[in-house]
């Protein structure tokens, strides 16, 4: 095609008209070439994203991940072991936190990752849409012992009787009490007692410290909206039915729980002050709210003990269970899990990989690596809380040694006791919308836009509509 427009040595002279015509043809050819080149560039640019990564015959496959990063030795030690298990196949670890937009784009463009780690509460949303592979075949072929995993963790990722993931961490929520703050107020850690609501309110106010109009110490942070499920459970309510299809957000007992938690916020200066003060915390640093006496007590996830042990190991801390009004301990456990997208092209290797990542031997090896690191830094190792009960027994029975730091030793024992009473939120086909509905409701209460009853009634409507819609479709 192109040779027709090439000007080469011609065997005859050209007159002007012909020269002009040729010139125009040549010019057109250049313009056409430019257009085609640009089109090729644009098209190749678009097509390159989802390029075909199929390995040649005999070549080892490379699996891809989403929602997981090699941040520390707990991750890297297990990844090394899991990679060994599927060799010569390899795994390319990509990204960090789970990004729904990235995952959706990958699935929609038919280039999903082979492995995905995500919040267990969100897994039902994707499982209900057929995006995740049920793991019956995986469990059977790899002879995975499900008894090693904690039941509440498995319940979070089981939808309609089918298991869609294998649990990773197990985040327990307990009361963390800053001994120094209580001492400065003439109190002991026992004063933080969630079974006696009236006394807790009074204690929170007594512990609150102000510098002029500014907060200088929060007495007791009820951690709403994020911990509302605990306050609901303490009042005898589950926020969603066991089958994950019926919202119970307008239950009067739940509203009463929210009213109480909100009253604690109001008594200590109001949401604006508390949020602004909280935003100024150096939460993960040496000047964390416990070491700087900015916070006296709060319900918190167990991993914060690891942070304190790392950045301020001399902090005097007490851990106690969060209880209902009868004094029964309540622990809301959450975490992430590994799943295999339905469209993964390497399901067998993916299954073996997630099995290895979550099995007890891998967790124990990772805990040993962390313990070594902490020892070399002369810091206490407070353990790793996993969804694998067998691993936890070994980690906390043999690897964790906190005899030199009695405060952390007692704190860790407190977490271990609490996790025997853990509950989880059931899997739901509209997990994301359900969570957004109740969190938005609490935020409307906190910012004074709605009263608790009105906000939760609105949340109930929004959540139930989303659940009905998800279940119906």
């Amino acid at each position, binding site marked *: 095609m192109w040779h027709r427009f090439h000007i080469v040595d011609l065997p005859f002279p050209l007159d002007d008209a012909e020269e002009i015509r040729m010139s125009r043809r040549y*010019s057109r050819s250049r*313009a056409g070439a430019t*257009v085609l080149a640009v089109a090729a560039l*644009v098209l190749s640019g678009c097509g390159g994203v989802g390029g075909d990564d199929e390995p040649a015959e005999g070549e080892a496959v490379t699996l891809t991940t989403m929602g997981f990063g090699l941040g520390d030795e707990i991750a890297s030690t297990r990844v090394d072991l899991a990679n060994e298990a599927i060799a010569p196949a390899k795994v390319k670890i990509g990204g960090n936190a789970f990004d729904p937009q990235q995952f959706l784009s990958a699935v929609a463009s038919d280039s999903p990752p082979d492995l995905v780690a995500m919040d267990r509460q969100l897994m039902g949303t994707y499982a209900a849409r057929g*995006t995740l592979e049920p793991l019956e075949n995986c469990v059977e072929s790899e002879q995975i012992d499900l008894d090693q995993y904690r039941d509440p963790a498995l319940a979070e990722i089981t939808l309609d009787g089918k298991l869609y993931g294998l649990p990773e961490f197990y985040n327990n929520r307990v009361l963390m009490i800053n001994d120094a703050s209580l001492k400065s107020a003439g109190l002991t850690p026992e004063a933080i007692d969630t079974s006696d609501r009236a006394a807790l309110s009074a204690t929170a106010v007594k512990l609150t410290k102000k510098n002029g109009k*500014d907060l200088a110490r929060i007495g007791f942070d009820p951690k709403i*909206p994020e911990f509302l499920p605990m306050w609901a459970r303490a009042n005898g309510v589950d926020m969603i039915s066991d089958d994950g299809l019926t919202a119970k957000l307008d239950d009067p007992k739940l509203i009463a729980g929210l009213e109480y938690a909100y009253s604690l916020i109001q008594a200590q200066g109001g949401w604006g002050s508390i949020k*602004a003060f909280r935003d100024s915390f150096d939460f993960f640093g040496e000047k964390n709210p416990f070491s700087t006496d900015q916070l006296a007590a709060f319900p918190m996830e167990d991993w914060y003990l690891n942070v304190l042990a790392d950045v301020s190991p001399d902090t005097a801390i007490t851990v106690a269970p969060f209880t209902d009004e009868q004094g029964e301990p309540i622990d809301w456990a959450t975490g992430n899990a590994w799943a295999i997208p339905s469209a993964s092209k390497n399901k067998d290797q993916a299954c073996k990989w997630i099995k290895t990542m979550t099995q007890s031997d891998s967790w124990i090896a990772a805990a040993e690596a962390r313990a070594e690191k902490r020892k070399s830094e002369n810091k206490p190792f407070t353990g790793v809380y996993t969804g694998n009960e067998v691993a936890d027994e070994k980690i906390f029975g043999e690897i964790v040694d906190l005899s030199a730091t009695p405060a952390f030793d007692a704190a860790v024992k407190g977490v271990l006791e609490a996790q025997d009473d853990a509950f989880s939120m059931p899997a739901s086909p509209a997990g994301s919308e359900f969570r957004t509905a109740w969190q938005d409701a609490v*935020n409307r209460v906190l910012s004074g836009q709605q009263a608790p009853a009105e906000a939760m009634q609105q949340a109930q409507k929004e959540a139930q509509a989303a659940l009905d819609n998800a279940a119906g479709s």
Partner: protein
Amino acid sequence: MAARTEVRPRPRRRTSRFRDRETWAAYAFLSPWIIGFLLITAGPMLISLVLSFTDYDGLRETQAVGWRNYEQVMSDPKIRTAMFNTLVYAVLSVPGTMILSLWLATMLSKVGRRSAGVFRTLYYLPEVTPKVAVGVLFLMLFNGQVGLVNSALGLVGIDGPQWSTDEAWIKPGLVLMNLWSVGGTVIIYLAALNNVPRDLYEAAELDGVSAWQRFRHVTLPMISGALFFTMIVQTIAALQTFDEAYTAFFGSTASATYSNDAALFYVVYLFQQAFQFLHMGYASAMAWLLFLVIMVITFVQVRLSRRFVYYEGGER
């Protein structure tokens, strides 16, 4: 040779103007944009129109749902909240940006050429700051207890509000944060100011008019084209605002936990519906509603501009 230098009449062209060399060259140079527009903008727009009549979620087989998404858009109370927030933001943000930019450009036009370059660079720098960073900065600068803004207000005896939690102050706070990056508009106004003929000012001065009258009757009419252009662009940008509010109140797990309905702008809610709740069809319907709203507002602005915008050589 002599024959070749003769000027012969060109044959009259009866062919399409596309055969003209310059026209082809022009289209060749335009082609990256045209191809980009067709593939990256027009194509997805048309597809989104089709998707707006489906229950597409990006994962499952798609079913047609007729007008259901549009009916839901009309009855969704959160759409009303988001649209109200967005309009309030636009009403505060567009005049704020224009007034501040014009003031800064007027100041810059009076300083020496060398200093003006330095200031132009300084004012433009925030424009290249990632919007995500601006969202994070918002929470730090506007922290009700330790933020720089309230500290500064405290110096003059003003007890600053809780910018990040008080629903009455969230939008004004975001508008103030947006004013930080007015550099682009300042540059446009500065160019327009520099193009105002000096003799108009000299004539006005000879007539003894005051500085305000010169500004009102000479400067403003002469830069009205630039003002109109920035008003259109700023209005569209304000109606599509997303980055700062999303980063500050919805982006991460932590910020989403403490979200606030007062910061729920239209595109933020659209994004939530699409990527958080997987309602792509519904989000497409939302996008088309926003497109219509922007089109109507722009049309009104263009119609009104005929009364206020002065084009050299044209009618006022």
